[in-house]
Structures are given as C-alpha cells and as structure tokens.
C-alpha cells in the first residue's frame, strides 16, 4: 500500500495535497469534471481551449494521483489513456490512410462535451437561484379540504322493468314444485303405491303393471315411474315383503307377495 511506503513528512504532505485534489475531483465527479476544472483554471473560453495543454495537465495530475491512490484512478486512467491517444493524434501529422476521426475531430468532440457540461452546470445554478416554493413564494397555508361526496344513483330502463315483471309472472305460470312433480314419480310415491297394491296381487306380476296412471305413455314420466317402482321393489324385497325374479337379461321383472 502506498500509505505504508510513504510515511516521511514530505510524502505525507504530498499525499494530503493529492488527496485534497482527489477529494475535489470526487466532489466534481469523474474525469470529465476534472478536465473541466483544469480547463477552468486556464481561464480561457472552453471553446478555444487548448486540448493539447489540457491533456498534458491532466496526464500530470493523474500520474501524481495514481502514485498515491491507485484504486480511485481507474476512470481517470481511462481518460488519461484516451487523452494520450488524442495528444499523439494532434501532434503527429495526419496519416491519409488512417481510418476514423482525425485528432481535430476528437478534440472538437471533447470540447463540445466540456462545453455542454459547463452549460448544464450554469443552468443548474440559474435554476437553483430561482424563486422556490416554500422559500421565496408560498402556497396557501391553511388549505380548505375539498370534501369528496360520493353519491350513488340507481338506474333502470323500461326494458329492465318489463323484464322484471315478466320474470315475476313467468314464475307464477310455472310454480316450481307443481311443475317438477308432474314429471317425477318419487320413490316415496312408488313405495306407497306398491305397499297398498301388493296385497291384491296373487302370483308373479310384471312390475310395469304397478306404474301409476298417466305415467305409461310419456317417456320422461315413464322413465321416472319405472325407476322409482323398481327401486321401491328392491326396498320391499329387502324388507322381506316380496320376492323378485327375472328369467333372463332385459326380460320383465316380476314380483310376488311373500308369505
């Protein structure tokens, strides 16, 4: 570390001086800033700045800074390398076969960048010098709050109204339970019916004869009645009140009272 090496009073003084400069550089942030600072110390119009002289000054500074605080110098070294390149371009006679920008063009770009940065810095200062809210001019100190009143209005169209009425009337015409019962013969109904009928039958009887009246023709009603009658038969067989038989698959199911 450079810190350990340079502990003589003169080295310390030199390091402090360089650090002061570096801190300053840090304050200005970056190699472009440093260039601008150096350029300003020449007290010349940036547009007329001697890039060559600036490059020399910069390289000297970086050489000095690098010896002490190498870790801070990376960006600055990149700039230094570039400036050295630029310097060589400016010093050497232009090579007609050389591709790329000429030294003058590179110098012009650098001057432009410096000028632009300076301009931004100037307008930033002008901006901050403006009258500012809360410092020079003031907003209302006691604002009267705007109360937001939310009100809800309801709307409906005539069609909505008619549809609603139609809905209530439609509901009347098709009373839900009555309607449903029409097509359905429930298990309870089938059980009731068969319990009361089974006593009247002597021998084996096709269970289809136990279907209630009016449930034999309409397919939907017949399906419902057949299913519940069959289920009721199974229930009665389980209770031990009837016997069930079927000669073969899909043949009629026959029942007979037991005992």
């Amino acid at each position, binding site marked *: 570390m450079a810190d350990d090496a340079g502990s003589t009073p003169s080295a310390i003084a030199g390091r402090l001086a360089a650090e002061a400069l570096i801190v300053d550089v840090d304050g200005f942030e970056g190699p472009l800033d440093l260039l601008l600072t150096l350029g300003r110390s020449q007290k010349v119009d940036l547009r007329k700045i001697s890039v060559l002289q600036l490059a020399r000054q910069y390289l000297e500074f970086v050489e000095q800074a690098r010896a002490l605080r190498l870790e801070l110098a990376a960006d600055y070294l990149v700039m230094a390398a570039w400036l050295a390149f630029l310097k060589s371009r400016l010093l050497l006679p232009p090579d007609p076969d050389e591709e790329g920008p000429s030294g003058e063009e590179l110098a012009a770009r650098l001057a432009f960048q410096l000028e632009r940065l300076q301009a931004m810095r100037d307008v930033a200062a002008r901006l901050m010098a403006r009258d500012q809210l809360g410092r020079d001019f003031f907003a209302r*100190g006691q604002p009267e709050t705007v*109360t*937001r*009143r939310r009100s809800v209005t309801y709307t409906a169209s005539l069609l909505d109204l008619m549809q609603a*009425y139609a*809905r209530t009337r439609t509901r009347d015409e098709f*009373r*839900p339970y009555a309607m449903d019962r029409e097509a359905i013969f429930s298990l309870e109904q089938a059980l009731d019916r068969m319990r009361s009928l089974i006593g009247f039958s002597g021998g084996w009887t096709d269970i289809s004869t136990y279907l209630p009246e009016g449930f034999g023709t309409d397919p939907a009603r017949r399906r419902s009645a057949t299913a519940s009658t069959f289920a009721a038969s199974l229930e009665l067989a389980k209770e031990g009140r009837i016997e069930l038989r079927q000669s073969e698959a899909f043949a009629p199911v026959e029942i007979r009272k037991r005992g």
Partner: protein
Amino acid sequence: MPQVSEEKLESLFGAPPMAEQERMIEAILFASTEPVSARELDARLPHGCDAAEALVHLRRRYEGRGVALVRIGDAYALRTAPDLGYLMQRETVEIRKLSRAAIETLAIIAYHQPVTRAEIEEIRGVSVSRGTVDQLLELEWIRFGRRRMTPGRPVTFVVTEGFLGHFGLETARDLPGLAELRSAGLLDGRLPPMSMPGAIAQEDEDDLPLKEGDQSELFEE
C-alpha cells in the same frame, strides 16, 4: 437580496406605502397556517407599518370576492366566501344498476298499484326486504298510497311522477300489458332459471323466501 435593502430603506425613510402594507398582509395571511393576530402582523411587517389600517383596506378589497377577510377572536384569516362552500365539495356520482329485488318490486308496484307489501310478496313469492322498499322510496320512484280498507288497514304503494319521468311514461297505464310482454318474447313459456328452488334465495339475499303456507293464496282464490 434587493428586498432586504428595500426594507432597510423603508425603516430609514418611514413605513412602506399603505398599498404595499396591504399586499404584505395579504401574503402573510394567505400563507399562514393559522389566523394571525394584529399584534403578530405588526411584528412581522417592516417597522412603522400599521397592520390595523392595512387590514381595513384589505377587508374592503375582498368584499364580494370569492375570498373574504374574516376576524377570529383577535386574529385574522382569509377564507373562501361562505356562499361558495358548495364548490369545495366534489360530488362524484356513481350510477348503479338497480338490484333484481328492487326492480321486480318496482315493476309489481307499477303494474298492480295501489298494492300492499303482502301482495307484492305474493306475486314475487319471496318476502320484500325493508331496504328494497326504502331504496325505491328514496329514489322517489314509489310513494305511499292510500291505506287498504281491509283488516289491519295496510299501506299501499304507488309509483310517482318521478318514476313516470324516469321511464318516459305518461301514465302507469302505458306500461305494456302481459299480452304485449308475451308477444315481445319476454313472457315465453321457457322456464326461467330463477324459478328453480333455491335460486331465488341466492340472488336476492335480502329477500327471505316465504314459507310454503304463505304462498299463492292470491292465485288460488
């Protein structure tokens, strides 16, 4: 800062002109977070100013304006004119569709008016919640009609002029009849989904289904 030197000049050569004092007070009262007393005004104004007099001028200047200089105790403040208070309210109006329960109730009242609550319940097959009726009353689409001359003397409901206006009707008799509803396809024989048991109670959570025994007296008679 030029104003500092101005201030110094002022205190050397006397107070600033009254018009200037007036605008100083105006600015202070405007920016202050609370009413400012005359004494404090005097303290804050350049030496030699007369806050009391400037306040008189300022109050006069704001007479009839959107802002007024008011005195609160021995302090002063600028306030918006009281008659413009309504501008300080932002009304946001939200438009919502009427609930199914409300629109059905409204429809039944329109078609059957004057109609009692019990009758509405008969027709809808569910009880009508207080909220539904209140909402329609509040919207001024229904109002109370005459009491029915039956036991208990129940109140009836009728639709209002406001209702007719909203729905673009001259009279309630202009409502299309059942035959027209049917021919418009609104009353087709198709079983509407809400006539399935259970569906009603789900959709109209505020309306309790009636007990079996309560139903359909109206239609069985």
